[in-house]
Each structure stands twice: as C-alpha cells, then as structure tokens.
C-alpha cells in the first residue's frame, strides 16, 4: 500500500513538471508568435518619411475678405476662410445650446486673428469634402459649408448645424508664423 501511494505521488509530481514545461513552452511559443506579428502590423502605420511631411506652410496674404481657399495638409484638403465681419458676427451670436457639438467661435480661431478660420475639409460624417469654398457652390442654410454626400450643413465657424454629421469640422493644429504665413501641423 505504502509503495503504491509513493508511486502515485511520484507520478503526480512528474505530471506537474510536464504540465509546467508544456505550458511554459506553449506560452512562450504563443507570445513569440504575437511578437512576430507586431512588426508586420506596425509596418502598416505611417512610415518615417510620411511623418516627416506632416507640416505645411501656407501664405495667406492673397486671400481677400470673404474669400475661401483650399490648401493641402497630409494629403487632405484644409479650408482657410477669410471671414467677413458679418460672418464672424453670425458665428458668435449662435446660442451654444442650439449646437450638437457645442464650441464657441473663439475657441476655433486664434486670438487676434479671428478673421481667419482654418478647418479640415473633411465631413465628420463619412469623410466627403464639403462644398462652399467657391462662391458658386452651395453653402447651406447657415452660410458655411454643405456636404453633398449626405446633406450635412455647417455654419460660418465650421460647426455642424444640420444633417447626419456628429461633430464640427476639425480645427487642425496650426500657428501664425508671421501675419501672412501659417504653419499647419
């Protein structure tokens, strides 16, 4: 009896050691496999040369009051609007409670440069380019931008007012290098 019990104990110890070894090997293999996958996935992220191109310098001296232009930043359109006093006024007067994505006009422009609105030209619904840069294009009920894909309408501050888009048009990171030069990114 004592012998049998002893043998069982030894077996059990053997089992445990084998389990430990097998589990560790399987775990290391699995972790190793995942580590091999990471470089593949990461290779799909922007490459170093793409990241290096992430700023655009633009000259805004040629944009007259009331004019809007499209510039390119990171391969996408950015709208620069030189707003009229009436447009600025309209943007400021809106009651925040009416807005789907409440933001004041002041928080979307640079202090002292309120005439210039710089926004990404990509509808926050599904990424179409809203119309309203050229005078011949529709600007929607709020005098800002109108997305032709699903009818989202933005005001003169680029804020969403009507239609399916959930958010205001994004303001990219930018700064005024001089009175006439803006660095986006």
């Amino acid at each position, binding site marked *: 009896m004592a012998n049998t019990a002893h043998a069982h104990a030894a077996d059990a110890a053997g089992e445990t050691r084998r389990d430990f070894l*097998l589990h560790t*090997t399987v775990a290391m*293999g699995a972790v190793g496999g995942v580590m091999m996958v990471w*470089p*593949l996935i*990461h*290779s*799909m*992220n922007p*490459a*170093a*040369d*793409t990241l290096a191109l992430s700023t655009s310098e633009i000259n805004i001296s040629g944009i007259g009051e009331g004019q809007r232009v499209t510039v390119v930043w990171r391969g996408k359109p950015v709208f620069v609007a030189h707003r009229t006093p009436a447009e600025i006024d309209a943007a400021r007067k809106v009651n925040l409670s009416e807005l789907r994505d409440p933001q004041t006009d002041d928080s979307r422009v640079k202090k002292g440069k309120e005439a210039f609105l710089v926004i990404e030209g990509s509808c926050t619904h599904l990424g179409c380019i809203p119309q309203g840069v050229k005078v011949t294009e529709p600007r929607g009920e709020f005098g800002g931008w109108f997305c032709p894909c699903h009818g989202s309408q933005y005001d003169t501050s680029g804020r969403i007012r009507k239609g399916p888009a959930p958010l205001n048009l994004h303001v990219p990171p930018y700064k005024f290098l001089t009175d006439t030069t803006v660095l986006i990114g």
Partner: protein
Amino acid sequence: MSTEKSVWRKAFEWHEERLPLVSWLDHSLGTKYPVPRNLNYWWNFGSLAMFMLAVMIFSGIFLAMNYTPHVTLAFDSVEHIMRDVNHGWLIRYMHSNGASFFFIVVYIHILRGMYYGSYKAPREVLWWMGILIYLVMMATGFLGYVLPWGQMSFWGATVITSLFSAIPAVGDSIVTLLWGGFSVDNPTLNRFFSLHYLLPFVIVGLVFLHIWALHVPGANNPLGIDATPADKIPFFPYYVMKDVFGLGVFVVIYFIAVFWFPNALGDPVNYVKANPLVTPPHIVPEWYYLPFYAILRAIPNKLLGVVAMFGAILIMFVLPWLDRHPVRSASFRPIYRVFFWLFVANALMLGWCGAQLPEGLPATLSQVGTFWYFFHLLVVLPVLSWVETPKPLPASISQPVLKAAE
C-alpha cells in the same frame, strides 16, 4: 442521460456536424494521424518547410504593401522599405534570407526522401507533388529576385528568360511574350510581380495535395519497412512537440542570419540599381540554382544546355522507376548509400562550379559533374536495382526498437 452538455459544447457539435473542421484537422495533423514511432530528426524538415512558406507569404504580403512594381520606382521603394517603413528592414531581410532558408530546408527534405527511398511505391504521387512544389518554388524565387530591380535582378531576368529563346522556331516569340516587349522592361517587372504574388498560393494548394498523398499510405520511416498499427503513435502530441523543438532550433539559426549576416547570401551588385546598358562582369544566380546553372553551362550548345538543365529536374519525376530496388532505406543498401553520398558531393561540386567563371578547371568539373548527375540517375540506380544485395531487414519497426530498449 442527465449529464448536461454546456452550451459551448452543443454549439461546437452543431458546427462540426455541418463543417467538421476540427475533426478534419485531428485526422490531418492531430491525434487521429498515426505516424511511425521511429522517425528521426531528418523528418522535421517537412514541417519546417511549411513554416518557411508561411513566413514568406506573410512577410511578402506586407512588403507588397510598400513595394512599387515600376522600373523607375522599384529600387527606390525597396530602399524606402529598408529606411522609412516601420520594421521594414526586418520584414525585408526576413523575406530575402527566408528564400535561402526555404531552399535549404527543402533541399534537406528532398535528400532525406532520396536517402530513405520515400519516393518508392506506394508514394510515387507524393514524390511528384513534392517535385511540383520545388519547380514552382524555383519559379517563384526567380520572379521574386527580379523585383528589387538591382543589376543582378535585371541581368538575371534577361539571362534566364533568354533560355527560352533556345526553343527551335518559336523561341524568340516566347521570349517576346515573356518580356511584353523587346527587352526586360516595365511590362516584365509588372507581370513578374503579379506572378510572384500568385505562385506562393499555388504552392499552398500543392502542399495540400502533398500532405493528402502522404496520408494515403502514411509516412515512410528510417527503416523503410511498412509500419504496423502497433509501430505507430499519434502525430499529436508526439510529433507536434518534436516539430516545435526542431522549429526552435531552426529559427535560432535563421535569426542569426537575418540579424547579423543579412546580405551574406546576396550579391552586392544587386544594391546597384538596374542599368540596361551595363552588364555586371560576373552574372551568377542565387545559390540555390547554382548546380543547375552549372549543368546549363557545361554543354556548349544552347538548345542542349537548356534541355539538360530542365531535364535534370524533370528526370526526378521518373526516379521511382529508375530505382526499382525493393528495399527503400539506404540503411540496408550499403552500395546505394555510397552512391547517394557521391551524388550529394557531386551536386555540391556542381554548385561550386556554377559560381565560378566558366573557364579552366570549373568548366571541366561542370562537365564531369553533369555527366555524373545523369549517369547516377540513368545507369547507377537501374543497375543497382538488379545487382545490389541488401542487408537483412528487421521483421517490424518494433523489433529493433524494442531490442535496443532492452
């Protein structure tokens, strides 16, 4: 009847009834696949080849995301991968060295089959599928080597596609068709990229057939005699674990090459962008083609050289009928064993010749080696089939195994 099955178990069984994926796997590479218990480590190279195929396909898919198959951009896009893409250097070196390691593994796998007579009845079709895989591998490797569009890419492509011009009457038309123009140029590069992406999946299909054909008679073994059910153990967990260990050792060697000698097997000239107006002084194919390249150059007639080169591979299809000796394993055929090693040494010598300039000693040795290659297959093997007396075979796999265990 009261034992409740869990909802997961029920869902699993529901699915298995409709598509028995897990039991199929279990029969293919699991507990229901019985394998002779006496396989040695030379039997690891089949699973290693599958591993390398997977490495090549996955690294290749991600390289293709950043590669541009255009003559003005291909070389630059490879440099872009090496310099700017996150981990691009790693993926590219794994792919370029992976080709060499894939071939090393497959060559050992083939030689193992030749040593232990794995091509003999009833495994002839299994052997055929293997040769087909090897042929498609050679095509894929050649196409892939062209893609970086270095000097050796360009001139290798020119030389190899020009082989087809040796075909009487239609040769030149075929070469023009392959090129899509009157020299290796952008259309050539574009179609090579397309085919290089396609053929690995053809290999995957052939691997399925290869493994299917393996399961019909079951695996051969170092003794070469038929295994009885008592001689077998399930593939899972025993051979899975053994293959995993082999894989561990293999990747260490592979990583040493990738991380410390990534360009040792490549030609420096391929870091010079392709120039259609300047041929490098010394055109050599990648090492894995060298024996066949030596055979090509050994015969001073364009058509016959090409025929000999392709014949050297195609002749392998009839190997099971050239070697008709009833004993499979070289362990019991002392004379065949000597000739087997001579054949291996001869192939290595041909490989060395293929890397030399075709003059003087290497040129002579190429001719001797080419002669011996065909003499071995066409004369030595058939004659040995008649005259060689084998050593006595054990009655079963268990017999010598159990005896040794006593």
